[in-house]
Each structure stands twice: as C-alpha cells, then as structure tokens.
C-alpha cells in the first residue's frame, strides 16, 4: 500500500514502535493509516498558498471534514471553501472507496449547480494547486508495487511503481517514511524522461490529540518552478460526527455546526 503524505489526518499504531519493518507493503499500509486515517473522524482548516514560477500568489481556504467508515477502508470527506470570497460555499463531497472508484459530488453556489464528478483519473490538479486530487484523498496502496530500498536511522525509503502506468504521469516515486510516526516526510516523482519533476514534503509535523499530524507541507513543480504550501490548523479528532454530515444534502446546506471554527481557549 502506499502513502501520500499530506493529509487530512494520520495516526500511528503504537504497536510497531521500536520494531524495524522489512516488508514494503506493511510499511505502506502503516503509512496509509498514519496519513489518512487518524482518529475516527477529524476536522481541520486548510489554507493553500499557490506560488507560480513567477512568484505570483493565489490562496485558497477550506475546511475539511473527514469520517472513517473503517480504518484503511472507505472514508467520507466534505470539503467546503471559504476563500477566496468569489468561490465561497463551493463544496466537494467524496465517498472514498477502496478497490473501486470514489463517488464525488460538487456544489457550485454561483451557478447553483450540483454536479457529479466522474471518477476518471485522480491526478488532476486540486483547485489549481500543485497538489493533485489524489494527494488530498490518498492514493490506494494497492495501485502500486512497493519496494523497500533503504532503511536509515530515521526513515524507511521505498520505491513505488504503478501497476497501471497508463493512468498516471509518473514512472515511479520514492517516499521517505518516518520510522516513528509512519508519516511520509518526502515523496519524489520521476517522469518518463527519467527526470525528477515533482516533490511533496512535510514541513512541520505536530502531535494533536495524540496523533502525529503533518500540519504544513509543500508540493513543488521541479520542472517549471512554482509550489503550493498547505497548512492545516484548528485540527480536531474524534468529534463524533454523524453520517448525515456526509450526505448530498450537505452540499447545498453545509453543516455549519461542524464547519464552524472552534472557539479559541
């Protein structure tokens, strides 16, 4: 299985502490849990700063609600945009499935339109950022083969090769997975010309509610320059969000109770 860092959550199973793993698949399975399945559910606010090769800046701000149906299995996401103000109220609803295509819906308040988004490939840009849709929701570990190529004091270093190369733009990628937290600290992608063209890296990791969490990360376009910084704040886990939050009803009627920023203490 495999990781994509970032993440909307994460977690580490305390059981593997201290052990040295040698099986790539197992490391990836752990990393997948750490990056995307922390807690039963979570709420966080993301702010993305998209910097292009010319240094010009765009921002996006959105709140992510996530609920696991099963650890390492199906999940639900609700992503609601608050800024820039001209796209405020745009909402994505995702039912992530393991082993089959996700179900995705989009609500566009300006056009007053609920639109289903076709599965297609998930390596499209996430709202103009250098992150892909797949980086945000997680790439299924079963989509690649994994090989542990090195174990350092700090990291497991793995090389991943896609099982269906026609669906992706890379030939392979390498991840550096923290041996303590199982969060990927760095991912580097190589394209058909054999060139390193893309990097995702964790800039800051914090423990929140007992879960190591990547709170700041960066994805860089190594060919053209330009990168996106993504920062998560006001993160909370295990809120006990009901399934009703993740229904199509929430597209037009966002669940304010859960989207609202918690009060500062």
């Amino acid at each position, binding site marked *: 299985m495999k990781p994509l860092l970032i993440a909307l959550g994460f977690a580490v199973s305390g059981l593997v502490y201290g052990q040295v793993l040698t099986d790539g698949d197992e490391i990836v399975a752990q990393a997948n849990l750490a990056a995307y399945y922390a807690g039963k559910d979570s709420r966080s606010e993301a702010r993305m700063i998209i910097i292009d090769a010319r240094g010009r800046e765009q921002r996006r701000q959105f709140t992510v609600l996530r609920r696991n149906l099963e650890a390492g299995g199906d999940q639900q996401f609700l992503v609601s945009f608050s800024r820039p103000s001209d796209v405020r109220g745009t909402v994505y609803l995702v039912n992530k499935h393991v082993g089959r295509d996700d179900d995705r819906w989009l609500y566009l308040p300006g056009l007053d339109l609920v639109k289903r988004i076709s599965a*297609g490939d998930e390596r499209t*840009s996430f709202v103009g950022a250098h992150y892909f849709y797949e980086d945000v929701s997680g790439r299924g570990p079963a989509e690649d083969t994994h090989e542990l190529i090195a174990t350092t004091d700090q990291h497991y270093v793995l090389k991943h090769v896609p099982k269906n190369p026609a669906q992706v733009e890379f030939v392979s990628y390498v991840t550096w997975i923290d041996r303590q937290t199982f969060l990927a600290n760095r991912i580097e992608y190589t394209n058909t010309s054999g060139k390193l063209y893309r990097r995702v890296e964790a800039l800051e990791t914090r423990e929140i509610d007992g879960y190591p969490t990547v709170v700041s990360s960066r994805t860089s376009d190594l060919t053209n320059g330009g990168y996106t910084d993504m920062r998560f704040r006001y993160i909370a886990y295990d809120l006990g969000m009901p399934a009703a939050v993740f229904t199509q009803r929430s597209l037009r009627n966002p669940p304010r109770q859960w989207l609202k920023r918690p009060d500062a203490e």
Partner: protein
Amino acid sequence: MKQQTIQLAIRRPRIIYALMILLTVLLGGQIARISIDTDPENMLSAHQPERVFHNLVEERFGLHDAIVVGLVNKTDPAGIYNVASLSALHQLSGKILTLEGVVESDVMSLAVADNITQAQNGALRFEWMMKEAPVTAGQVQRVAQMVARLPLLTNTLVSADGKAAAIYVPITSKDLSYPLSIEINTLAESLGADGDAWYITGLPVAEDTFGVEMFIQMGISAPLAGLMIFLLLWFFFRSVRLIIAPMVVAMVTIFATMGVMIGLGFTVHIMSSMIPIFLMPIAIVDSVHIMSEFTDDYAPGKDPKAVISGVVEQLFTPMLFTSLTSATGFASLLLTPIPPVQVFGAVVACGILLAFVLTILFIPAYVVRMPVASLEKLGKQPVTDEIDTPLAKFLRRGGSFAFANGKLIAVLTLLVFAAGVAGVMQIQINDNPVRWFKQDHRIRLADRVLNEHFAGTYDAFFVLEYENSAAISKFRQQAEALLTREELTAGSAGLQALINAAAVDPGGYYGRIIAAADDALFAARDDTALALEALLEITESYQLAAKYFQRPDSLAMIEGLQQALMDSGRVGKTNALPDVVKVVNRELHTGDEEHYRVPHTVPAVAETLLQFQSSHRPQDLWHMVTPDLQSTAIWVQLTSGDNQDMSRVMDSLDKYLIENPLPAGVTARWAGKTFINVVWQRTMVAGMLKSLLGAFIVVLLMMALLFRSVLFGLLAMLPLSATILTVYGLIGWTGKYYDMPVAVLSSLTLGLSVDFAIHFIQRMRSLYEQTGSFAETARLIFEAPSRAITRNAIVIALGFTPLLLAPLLPYVTVGVFMASIMVISGVATLVLLPAMLSLSRAVLFRSSGKVR
C-alpha cells in the same frame, strides 16, 4: 600630402606589404571571436517600448517562441483521423517531450491535451484527450468528436477539415529552434501512415534557419562573387598578376573591417553578415579605375613608377570623393534608429574609407614590384587613343551621340523621372521573415501548407490591462480608519505592515491581509472581532473588485474585441478567456450548446475558472489571464506573417476601439512576434527615408565643394537621382515589396551611383583645363575615363550574378540591385551627363576653363 602618400607607396612597397599583412593578422584574427545573432527582434533597441512590453507579456503569460509541427494526410478521406496518423502524432509528441530545450509542460498536442466532457451519468470529467495512441476506429472517432467540441483546439491543433494536425513546441530559447527543428524533422521522418507528410515552420524556426543559411551564404556567395569578379577582371586586363592586386585590397579590407567590428564586441547580425558582400565591389571599384587607366597609359619603355604615380595622382581626388560619398551613404544609416542597421552603416562606411587608403597605397606598391615582363605584356596593347576594341568604338559613338542630342536626352530623362516617381508612389511596404526564403524553400512550403489548413501559424497578442490605483489608496484609508479604532490598536502591527506594504501584486496583497485578519479573528473577542470582521469584509470586497477580468461585462467586452479581430478579415482565429469560461460552463451544465456562454454573475465565472484549474493542465489558464485577473491576453492567430496583414488587423481594431472605447481603467496594447516585426519595419521605413534624404543633402554639399560649383554639384546628383528613381520606381511598378533588404540597399544605391558621375565630371574638367577645347574634351572623355567606368560597371554588375542563385532572397535582392545600380548609373553618367553638359556648356565651361 597626396604626393607623399603616392611616393611612399612607390618607394617603400615593402612597408605597405608589411602593413597589409599586419592588418590582416591583427584585425582579421578577431573574427575568431565571432558571435552570431539572428533574432530580428534585435532590430529594435532593447529599450524600445514595444519590445520591452513584448518581453513583459511573454514573461507575464509564460509565453514561449514555438516551433509548429504539422502533420497532413492527403489520401485518407478522414484526414489525420485514422489509427496510423494519430499514432504517429502521439509517438512524435512523446519524443518531442523528451528533447532538451522544449518547455515540456506547455507543449500543445492532441497527445497532451486535456478534455473536459460529460461522462455517461452527466458527471463532469477531465481526461487526457489521447493519453495513449488509439488502436481502433472507434477510439479515433471519439477523439474527432471531442476535438470538435473544444473551440480552443479546433483549427489550432486539428484543422477544421480534419486533414491536418499540429504540435506546438514551445522552446526555452529561440536560438534552439533551428537545431530542434532539424531534430524533430529527423524523428518525424520515420513516422506516419501512407499519405502522411510532416511540415515544420513557425517564425522562430524561419528566423533561426535564416540565420544558419545566411552564414552558409556568407561563406558561399561572397567568395563566389569574388571569383566571378576575378574572372571578369581577367577578361578585361588579361593579367592574373595584375588583377590579384584588387582582390588583395578587397580581402584585406573585408578581413580588417569584420575583425574590427567583431573585436569591438558587436554581434554579427543578419545585416552585418552582408558587410563582405557590400565591401567587395566598393573595394574593387577604385582599383579598377587605377588599373584601367594604367594599362591604357602604359607602354613598353615607359617608367612604370612615373605612369602609376601620374594615374594615381589624377584619380586621387575623384577616388577620395567617391569613397567619401559612398561612406556618407552608409554612414547616413546612423539616422535609422535600428541598432543593427546603425552598426552596419558605420562599419561599412569605415570599411570604404579603409578600402580607399589601401587602394592608394597598395596598388602602386604592387604595380612597381611587378616584373618588367608582366608589365611589358600589359603594354603590348595599343596606346590610349588608338585602342580599337568594340567597347572603345561603342563608347566613342555613344559619346558623340550624347553630346549632340542633349535636348532629346533631356526629354527622355524627364520621362524616366516621371515614370520613376509614379513607380515610387506605388511602392508596397511589406515584410515577413518567411518571405526571405525562396518560394520552393522547405520553410516556405511548410508555411504555405500549414497556413492553408490551420487558423494560422503567426501569433500576435492583444493584451488588456486593468488598473485602478485609486482603489488601493481608498482601501488603505478605510482599513486605517478601522485599525485606529481602539479595539484593534493592540496587536495590529502585523496587519498594519501588510496594509502599508507595496501592492505590486494585488492578488497577493489582499490575500495576505485577509489571511492575517482571519488568523487574528480566531483569538479575538467582542468588539475586536467585529472590527476584524469589518476589515475582512472591506478587504474581500476590494479583492473581488480587483479581479476585473472575471466580471461578466469585461468578458463580454473581450468577446467584442475577438469578434472585431475576426471582422478584420485577416485573422484565422482568436483564443481568449471567454472561450475557456464558455466551454467549462457548458460542461458544468448539461454539455448542450445552449450553455456555451459566459455566466451572468462574478461568482459563477469564478467557479468556472476554479473548475478549469481542477483539470490536468491548470497552467494553461495563465497563458490567457494573470492569477490576479487584472491582465488578459487575446491570442490572435494569423495565416500570414506579412506586416501588411498584421497592420490591417491593427488598423481595423483601432477603428473598432474608436466606436467602442475600452472601459475606464482598461488599457490595451499589442505584443507578439508578428507585431514586433511591424514595429521594426515601420521604424526602418521612416528611418531609411530620413537616412536617404540626409545622405542626399550631404552628398550634394560634398559635390558642390568638390567642384567648387553648385551647378556642377547639382549635375553630379543627376545620375544618382536617375538611378534611385529608376530602381525604386521599378520596385513600385513590378510590385516587389519594399522590405528590409530593399530598404537598406537605398544607401548602397546612393553611395555607389554617384561614383561614376564624380569621375566623369572631374575628368571632364581636368581635360578641359588641359585642352581648352570643349570638343576635344568631349572626345577624350569617351576614351580612357569612360572605358574605366564601363569596365567597372560590367565587372560589378556581372560579378554579383552568383548571388542570384542563393536560396535566400535578400542575397538575390543585393545581386539584382548591384547590377541595376551599376548599369543604370553607368548609363546615366555616360548619356545624361554629356547631354546636360553640352546643353549647359556655355555656363559651366565659361569661367572654369583654364582657371584652375
């Protein structure tokens, strides 16, 4: 001084030889440091506002020069829509992506195009148009259907008739376009189905290829012309030994002059690559005068030193003046505000003066060192007046005719002048670097074929900018007012700094303030929170207002401009922001044509743009609009790169803008290579006229000074005026475009066509001084002096015929001009001048005879 120079040459030939060798080695050696520049953009100074803006636009919208690769299938009824052709296109695209120097992410091809469409259940779908080459007819069909739905691709990536497909290959640096085009051509050759043909064009390829071939021509045409001149000289002088001398003068002049130019750090541009071609005839002309007179005067038994010094002395003044006038003609190019033209003019002017000095020094030094036997051979030809060659006989008869029929010739001349002026009035000013190649050149062919199929391989950009500087200061005022309220003063230093920061990038500026205020809000309570919310609200409203080009009304304005561009009749297609918005809007709705329109509200447009950015190629958006949505570019495709066509598009849009002025705060300017070519051509045409007039006046003054007579001065200008009017009149009558090479040749015309007149008048006057008889003068002038003029005219005119074979039209133009200048100014001098002199002899030869 004159005497001393000649004596130095005759007495100390070895010093002269040493000097020549030194010049060649020291200065010629600099040629090794050559650096080549083939970019016509450099026709404009780096500070020229249009060029600065063009570069700014390329940077702002991430635009690169692009090679256009075309695939045309003539046999398949479905055109390129067949498995084999699309596979070939796919394969070549893949290979191109791996080439060094290609801007991978901006390559445009079906193979890397993204498609926005509806999946079965009406779901929005982004998918690669042709991630893998199609293998079934069904897949091919699907690609064809998809392309037809995407106006941004139709006629750009696939021709409307489906016969042709294109790959746009943006490159990191335009001097890579030639090597890359060759590489792509090699890759393409092995690919394709039956009936497939590949074509490669694009302005950068044309320009870079021109540069490469131009240097090949410099190595072929100039030496070939040299060889031809050598053969012609041999025909006239029958002494290889003698005619080596002018060739040496020409060579040393060219090497030294090019060496100085390169040594001073000037790049060798399209213009300056022509310097050898221009210097060669000029360097040879003077030598031919000397040799012609010398062989006529010399007879066995005579002292060669005495003969040569007599000849040189006699020719010194006219040669000095012909050199000065030619140099003036070229130096006048300094008045044309085009840097490479200025360098060219200045360098050729210096080269001409150097050629004069070298001729005066080297030819005598060389002649006196010739073995007596060789000289005797020359002398075996009969002495001056008894020469009886057909040329000599012809000249004698012609001369007496001209002197006898002044009135007839004057009338004829007036007719020629009138016809010339009428022709000049019809001159069509036009240029297009692709036209610098001959009709059958592969670049011309590719250009023709691809522009027949597509909306055009020539690009221009009409760039709109919105600026509302008042908004920022108004915002600052309002924000300050909020910040100074009690509740906010504490802890607002960060916000304060952000508000006062320079707002170079309005997108980033408001965004940072919003983020900071939003963060502050987290910990804020009660009144502070309310104040921060107020600040957020006004900041967001200013941010929204700043995003000018996502307003539906501004998109409608752009659509109006697009329509106006199409209405000019010269534009193949425009691509702009509204096209993107309309396609996305259509697909977000049902995919039906009724939704192919710009939505009515700002948030709705913003949402379409956000969705476009959720595709595989979000970066494509930023070629059309800046992320702050304050500047947008309409990409205009033209099927012709002719400056006339681009000018017409500009004029027609100007008219539209008078009736439909841009909204307040919006400014518009052109950019793009096709536009830049128009700018430098306009600058060039205006500058050349100034140069020509300036040089004409200076030469007139020099003539008056030389002959100490305004009348003689005016007379000397007659053959020159006749030549210019005839040559440019013919250009007008034949409809040949007045382009860059033709413009530059005006200085050559002026500089060279006065030469013969100077020789003729100067010799007339000195003969009259010697003989005191007009009749005798009239007879003698048609002996040696006229033969020298005629030989020169023939040598130079024929000497440049090898240029006619060059594949590059500017070289052909130079060859034709050189011949025309020589023939017309020769005829004008030998016919018009005697006619006018005989008509005005009473005035002109009354006082001047015997006086000096």
